[in-house]
């Protein structure tokens, strides 16, 4: 395990050192951005809509019962933008995009395509890892912005149409606006950026470590997703603690 963490840190450092080559790899970054957006946007919006809805559904009646109906908007708004949108979208992206990255790079490794790159003096970190890590780091915060907005709307619909809550859209969004500030949204975006870097690096690392044929690729994909999710959840706690200092 410690060896893997060490290799992961080395790969991350090599990716940082490769940043000056970003312009050269811009086409691949755009391709990856398109892949990520195309594969995830609709799913992210559906997921966010229902997450917002379920938060309102779980908390709304309890708040209404205690005469705090006006607090539903703020509670849903804050929990979506600071916690649920970044974490859930990161888990979604780890499953959809991280797995695809690990599978693609793992397959390239298993079928000697990476060896072929090396013989052409093409650095696999520049060619494969940098565009993917960059693209996911740009795409995930954007997806999280979409998820936040759609999640708020989902919470709003449930708050209006659920007979146990039954508040107006205006009351919901007034409270949301009064509680949630831009800094809270920014807080969620910082988290999602860190999670994106973790997903990209872990997935590429697992791909590059692939040994064997299809079974090895399958193992790498599983490890990429599981390790990413575990790291996201652990990091989430420490990031939250850290970001609380700035509240």
């Amino acid at each position, binding site marked *: 395990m410690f060896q893997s963490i060490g290799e992961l840190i080395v790969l991350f450092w090599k990716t940082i050192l490769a940043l000056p080559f970003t312009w*050269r790899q811009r086409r691949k970054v755009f391709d990856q951005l398109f892949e990520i957006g195309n594969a995830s946007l609709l799913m992210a919006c559906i997921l966010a809509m229902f997450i917002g809805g379920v938060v309102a559904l779980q908390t709304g009646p309890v708040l209404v019962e205690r005469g705090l109906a006006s607090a539903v908007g703020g509670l849903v708004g804050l929990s979506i933008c600071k916690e649920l949108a970044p974490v859930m979208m990161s888990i979604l992206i780890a499953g959809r995009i991280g797995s695809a990255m690990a599978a*693609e790079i793992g*397959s*390239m490794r298993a*079928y*000697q*395509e990476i*060896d*072929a*790159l*090396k*013989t*052409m*003096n*093409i650095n696999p970190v520049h*060619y494969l890892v940098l565009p993917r890590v960059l693209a996911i780091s740009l795409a995930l915060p954007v997806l999280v912005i979409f998820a936040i907005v759609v999640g708020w709307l989902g919470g709003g619909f449930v708050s209006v149409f659920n007979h146990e809550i039954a508040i107006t859209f205006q009351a919901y969004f007034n409270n949301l606006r009064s509680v949630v500030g831009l800094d809270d949204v920014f807080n969620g975006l910082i988290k999602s950026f860190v999670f994106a870097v973790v997903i990209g690096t872990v997935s590429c690392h697992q791909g590059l470590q692939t040994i064997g044929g299809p079974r090895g690729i399958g193992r790498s994909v599983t490890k990429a997703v599981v390790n990413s999710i575990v790291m996201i959840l652990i990091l989430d706690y420490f990031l939250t603690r850290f970001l609380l200092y700035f509240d």
Partner: protein
Amino acid sequence: MPEKPSSSVSVEVRGLHKSFRGQPVLKGINLQVDQGEIFVVMGPSGSGKTVLLKHIIGLEKPDEGEILIGGEPVHAEGVMDRHRMAMVFQSGALLNSLTVGENVGLYLAEHRLKPDSEIATVVAEKLALVGLEGLEDRYPGELSGGMKKRVAIARALVIEPELILYDEPTSELDPLMAITVGEEIVKLRETTHATSIVVTHDRDLGFGIADRIALMWEGEILFIGTPGDVRKNSNPLLQEFITAEFGLTNKR
């Protein structure tokens, strides 16, 4: 062998040892390949030929010993920049997500050696050299095994290598295609003057194209010599390998 050209490089392997998980694969390999030579490494499957090739191109690091490319250790800083080397993999190892044209032009594009329009010209020229003109827009998945090998050769040629390594270039090919690939290797040596190291267990290919042959057996070199020397050598293992024929009465 042609006159010693300037666009080739010598290779020297000294006391090369390599083990994987405690299992020795190379047991003290020593050999010298001259500039512009076609040097064939023959031997049965599992004798360590491909591992040797991977060491020569720097994909593996030796446990002991060293590999010198033009007199410089292969892992020394900048050797890959100073000496252009290419490898044709057994499977072709074409990038499946790229078209044939993008695969062949990858080296030039990634190192920004030529503008896109010139790269297209070079790609067309190299594909024509291996008899695959007009296939730029196909994907590797749409090609036969032989075509993939020839695309891999075209990709290697774009580098204008001083040293080309071929890993089992005729495996999975029918006899006619194997002869074509063998002829390509000789033709390319004549046109590019590059040093060629060919790893194969195809005896016909080895004897047909080699200036010298090394026979590997269980991680060791049994013998190095010209094809004539190999045929005359009395080592029973070597004779068994070069004379073995399919027959139901064969008691091996």
